[in-house]
């Protein structure tokens, strides 16, 4: 069964500092990996995805993520965090095969708090 782990419930960072949100996954085969963000009282919004190719993926709002196959990780990063980046971030994985049911499995979420 596929799974996603986000080891930190919350990440605190000062505005202007680098932001990293960790994600590790477990899936059979080459994964499709995603990051979504949820602002208060809103639905999830897509940030970026990894399909194949370059391990560094760039997405919306200056976010990027690095796929590391050997460590089965897909950490989300932003070089300089903004107060407006404060939100709940979800990592998700989908297995490439139909046998896995094509389900998109989410991690437990990491709350990011950026302080001025």
């Amino acid at each position, binding site marked *: 069964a596929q799974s996603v782990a986000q080891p930190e419930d919350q990440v605190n960072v000062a505005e202007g500092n680098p932001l990293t949100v960790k994600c590790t996954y477990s899936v059979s085969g080459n994964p*499709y990996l*995603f990051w*979504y963000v*949820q602002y208060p*009282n*809103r*639905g*999830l*919004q*897509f940030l970026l*995805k990894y*399909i194949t190719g370059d391990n560094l993926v760039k997405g919306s709002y200056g976010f990027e993520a690095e796929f590391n196959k050997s460590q089965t990780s897909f950490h989300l990063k932003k070089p300089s965090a903004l107060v407006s980046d404060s939100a*709940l971030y*979800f990592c998700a994985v*989908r297995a*490439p095969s*139909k046998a896995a*049911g*094509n*389900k*998109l*499995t*989410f991690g*437990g*979420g990491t*709350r990011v708090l950026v302080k001025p």
Partner: protein
Amino acid sequence: DTAVSQTPKYLVTQMGNDKSIKCEQNLGHDTMYWYKQDSKKFLKIMFSYNNKELIINETVPNRFSPKSPDKAHLNLHINSLELGDSAVYFCASSRERTGANVLTFGAGSRLTVL
């Protein structure tokens, strides 16, 4: 126009009642989903429909019954509501059900069972 719209946004009801949440997408997507987000923000898939056909049915009590009259609509009916059903329910859609398809989420429907 809202891409994925859910109604109602808030729903407060008594235990034992029956309630429905409606979802509509105007993106022309083939696949729609219902996710449940609990009080700890954990997000879990409940159902998925592709072109009106049920393709994912997780271990959800029989009290929950999805209905997809056409590929733009996916409704969720809940019978005999229990306290544990209190959660935020998100509808989502994607162009297809496989691969790197991105989900577009609605704003959520917060259900409170008293």
